[in-house]
């Protein structure tokens, strides 16, 4: 049971990080490799602010959310939108956006590494996690917040993308941006808003994860990027529900491997499992098979 709780916490961490990336990739087709840097730099700004002033939990989270949204909006404005404008179509832009994201990510990473000398950094906060014990299980208050936030936002986002008009518009852009524009969908505004939302989610993940782990390093975001990529592919691109399930499947596999004390095999087993699932279902657990009419 304790392992289930651990898996739920770990899965919620992966989910909170992956949600933003899944949202933009699955809807407006942007594979944002600057997502990890956004996550990290949002937490880093929180660290800088709390270096001199101790702040409560909510204030730190709010700062990170706002910074994350701002960074992502700037990246969309200054990098991705110009790339899209100069490209013949969405497909042609994909590789350029990928490379552009990697390039952009190097800047906040270098800044944070320079200031911290790559030492770990955390927050000075009046919040102090407590341990809740029940039925022989242990859970910290931070882990509880992470689990609730992960599930609530994951499910909420899934429902919103599936049921709301804006969600429908986003999905339309993902299928065929030109036709969607022709149907009156304002691509520019929606893309901007989606990126800002994804950035806010990255900031939220950055703050919560830093509280949960105690500290992160400038390189933490990049390490999580691969996991997020795997979660989204496993769950099925375009499926928010798939991302939710994928995060917990990956976390469950990792927790099991750790419980069996094969700690150095975690990545190999987890990604091996994903590979096997994709062999059987190339579209991922909840992705739809693509149908092309010739």
């Amino acid at each position: 049971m304790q392992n289930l709780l651990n898996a739920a916490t770990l899965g919620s961490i992966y989910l909170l990080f992956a949600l933003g990336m899944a949202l933009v990739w699955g809807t407006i087709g942007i594979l944002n490799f600057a997502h990890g840097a956004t996550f990290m730099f949002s937490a880093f700004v929180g660290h800088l602010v709390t270096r001199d002033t101790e702040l409560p939990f909510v204030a730190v989270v709010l700062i990170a959310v706002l910074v994350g949204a701002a960074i992502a909006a700037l990246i969309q404005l200054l990098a991705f939108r110009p790339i899209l404008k100069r490209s013949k179509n969405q497909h042609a832009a994909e590789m350029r956006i990928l490379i552009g994201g990697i390039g952009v990510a190097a800047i906040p990473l270098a800044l944070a590494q320079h200031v911290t000398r790559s030492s770990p950094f955390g927050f000075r906060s009046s919040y102090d996690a407590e341990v809740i014990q029940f039925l022989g299980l242990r859970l910290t208050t931070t882990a509880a917040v992470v689990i609730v936030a992960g599930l609530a936002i994951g499910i909420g986002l899934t429902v919103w993308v599936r049921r709301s008009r804006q969600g429908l518009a986003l999905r339309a852009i993902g299928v065929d941006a030109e036709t969607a524009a022709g149907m009156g969908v304002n691509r520019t505004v929606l893309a901007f808003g989606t990126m800002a939302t994804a950035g806010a989610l990255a900031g939220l993940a950055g703050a919560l994860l830093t509280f949960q782990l105690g500290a992160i390093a400038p390189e933490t975001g990049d390490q999580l990027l691969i996991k997020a990529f795997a979660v989204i592919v496993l769950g099925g691109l375009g499926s928010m529900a798939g991302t939710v399930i994928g995060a917990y499947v990956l976390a469950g596999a990792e927790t099991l491997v750790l419980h069996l004390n094969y700690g150095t095999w975690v990545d190999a087993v987890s990604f091996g499992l994903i590979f096997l699932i994709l062999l059987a279902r190339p579209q991922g657990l909840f992705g739809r098979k693509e149908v092309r009419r010739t």
Partner: protein
Amino acid sequence: MGSAARTRRTLLAGLAACAVFATAACGSSAEGGSGGGIQSTIKIAQVQDQTGAIAYAGLGASEGAELAIEEIDEQGFLGPGVKVELAKYDTAGEIERASSEMTKAMGDRDVDVIIGPAATQQAAAVAPLVGRQKVPTVFTQAGGDGVVVNDYTFRATPPMESYYEQVLDHLKQKGATNISVLYNATFPTFALLGEDAVPEMAKARGMNIVQSLPVQTTTQDFAGQSQQIAQKRPDALVMLLIAPQSVTALRQLKDAGYDNRIVATSVQAAGNIAAAGADADGLVYPVPFSTAMDGESSVAFTAAFREKYRKDPTPYAADGYDAMWFIARAIKASGDSSREGIRQGLATVAKEGFTGAMGKLTFEGNDARIDGALVQWRDGKETLAQ
């Protein structure tokens, strides 16, 4: 052929001969004089991380090396008017970059000696190159295997397992019998310690390893391992993790209810454990250098460093300082600042040992050995552990 043409040919041949001799002379002096002597400017390349995941090691070593250079120049240690110049090459935390920067440094004929990468994987990648190119290289940190592999490779920071015995002695003294080990098995130094050195040292002292938990460098969450350790309730935990991992592990160990002894490594030094706050209080770890050390040479180094930089030195600064003084002593010993002269000088100084920021340094072959110090972290600072 007319006499004018003959004269032109003779002049051209003479000019060509002069050019050849001049080039040969320049080449000779780039190798450090005609087989001996100390040049007026000695160029030392520091090929270490100035950016990247372990930038703190390279930047710290730079500060220590620059302090040493200041002292060497001011004292005229290598002779009147002899200056030491430090050229920095950034390996940026990448093995490929380390190879290319080392190649660049070795290709610069003005570079007489190199302070090599601090990360074991980078150092092990370049160590064979160093031997092939015959460029004496002094590594700092880089405590894993495959670094000190030929006559041109030297290591000024002893490998961690060479001074880790005092940790096990400390645990024995505190009455620990059952020990758990939590270690990063994909970090060469910790893999060596966790899988070989610590179990051997524990066995030799009649202690039992009741639990051995390997993790990867990419492991960020230690809730599961912390709970396993708390359930096992060992007398002590040997924690061999990199800086951000150790901060998380300390927090999660407390959350899991583990409150017995924890010992760690010098990676926790240089304030890297500060982010753990009160969760790190009581943590004990061995260091090659600490401001808490009370030996004369260590105290003098700390004072000089504080005066120059207005902050406390880290073990990495002490590494860089001692590496630079190792090189200076080598040049003085051989009286020759050529690459081969420095290599011979390093070998000579290694046989004798010397005293530096880390205290008394002796060598096993080309590999430094020190006593080190055992420190305890409490309330944001290190004190000597009792």
